[in-house]
């Protein structure tokens, strides 16, 4: 059963059409690698799915519902986008993860601590100033902040960008462990073909604002993708 469906999605900024009629289906619980060169529209497409950007035409369905008919705040708690740049908010690591819960009036410290541990952050870091963490640690905080919401889908925008190459594999593993255990649907944006192959159940490739190919990992045809 498809959890996210995009039908004829278009988006322009001024005269420039960035998304040019995208059709895409993402099955519930699968990890879909969305691969393509810089500027192909991958990040914009993710922002269209969680309605951070309003599409010009076409429609996007999440769990069978048109996102335009959903409360955008509720949608973003269900389909959580983790941006490429790991932004941290003022306060401790724990404060950062408590933040989306507090926004809902939930003061559940244990839930936040659990999310942090699952994202691979040790307890000693919980009280540290989040802004002083390393790039890799910030990525993990961003993941924990998303997971604490117990989302149905994660939209990951280059989740290992800027991470020490030796640690990329570890982060990939921990993300896959977290999402597979919970049946979370994932769109994993990457420009790295080998990463797309490592993490995705299926692969979709984008070029100049269009999804040009979609296929199972093992049978994906790479010709013309880049």
């Amino acid at each position, binding site marked *: 059963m498809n959890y996210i469906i995009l039908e004829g999605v278009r988006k322009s*900024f001024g005269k420039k059409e960035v998304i040019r009629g995208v059709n895409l289906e993402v099955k519930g619980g699968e990890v879909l690698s969305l691969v393509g060169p810089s500027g192909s529209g991958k990040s914009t497409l993710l922002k269209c799915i*969680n*309605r*951070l*950007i*309003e599409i010009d035409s076409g429609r996007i369905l999440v769990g069978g519902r048109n996102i*335009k008919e959903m409360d*955008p*705040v*509720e*949608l*973003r*708690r269900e389909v*959580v*986008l*983790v*941006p490429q*740049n790991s*932004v941290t*908010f*003022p306060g401790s690591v724990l404060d950062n993860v408590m*933040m*989306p819960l507090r*926004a*809902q009036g939930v003061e559940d410290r244990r839930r936040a601590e659990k999310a942090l541990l699952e994202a691979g952050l040790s307890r000693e870091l919980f009280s540290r100033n989040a802004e002083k963490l390393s790039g890799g640690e910030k990525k993990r905080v*961003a993941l924990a*902040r*998303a997971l604490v*919401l117990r989302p149905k889908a994660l939209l990951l925008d280059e989740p290992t960008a800027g991470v020490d190459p030796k640690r990329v594999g570890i982060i990939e593993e921990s993300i896959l462990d977290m999402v597979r255990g919970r049946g979370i649907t994932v769109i994993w944006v990457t420009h790295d073909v080998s990463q797309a192959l490592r993490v995705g159940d299926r692969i979709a490739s984008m070029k100049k604002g269009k999804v040009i190919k979609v296929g199972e990992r093992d049978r994906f045809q790479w010709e013309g993708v880049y």
Partner: protein
Amino acid sequence: MSGIPYTAEEALLRMALVAILIVIAALLLRLRRVGIEKEYLYALLKGGAQIFALAIFLTYLFSSPIWYLLIWILLLAMIIVGGRTSARRASGLPRAESVTTPSILAGAVTVITILVLSGAMPLTPQFIIPLSGMVFGNSMTICSLTVERFLREVRLGRERIEAALCLGIPSAMAMEEFGKEAVKAAIIPTLDRLKTLGLIFIPGAMTGLIMAGTDPIVAAEYQMIVYFMITGGGVITSLTAVYLMRKRVFTEAEQLAEWL
């Protein structure tokens, strides 16, 4: 004491004598080749022409039997000019006057109402015009500082705001710290001036009243009324501007507006 101890003609003569300062300053600027002597003289002439035009208008208005009608026209002009001037600071914001004019109005109307009800502003043109000018002028400055800072903060903090929205945090909450920063930036210069009152300088209203022969205690009391006006009106204007701006930088679907 009975105010400045000479007639208008004598004042003109003194003004002409003190104008020797302009000659000295202009000569020094020219000698040092600073390159702003023309602008200096132009600014003096323009400013001088404006305040004399105002003085002539006020002389007419003070003796006019329909002064209360003219005052309404003047207040309306203050609102329109204030809103437009401040709107220029809201770079990129479409229909910026719809944020700045009501914000200035909110601060100014509250202050003027309290001034009238408390009796601090007698209903004569000699009080209404200068005090309203001060109130509108100050609200305009605070509004300009607020919108400019707010937009700068939002543009610089765009990533952080979007990251918060991505976590299902409502826009009002995602925006909170940026709004606070804008209000602080607009109000703090006034508070700093307030803290140094009487230590580094004697403020304008008090200076004027003392020179006009008012008892220094009464002058200080009136100066405090002016500061209550400036700070109270400023806070109301700034908070209103942030409230209205917040509604404009987000769409109905809790997205950052594309014009940003």
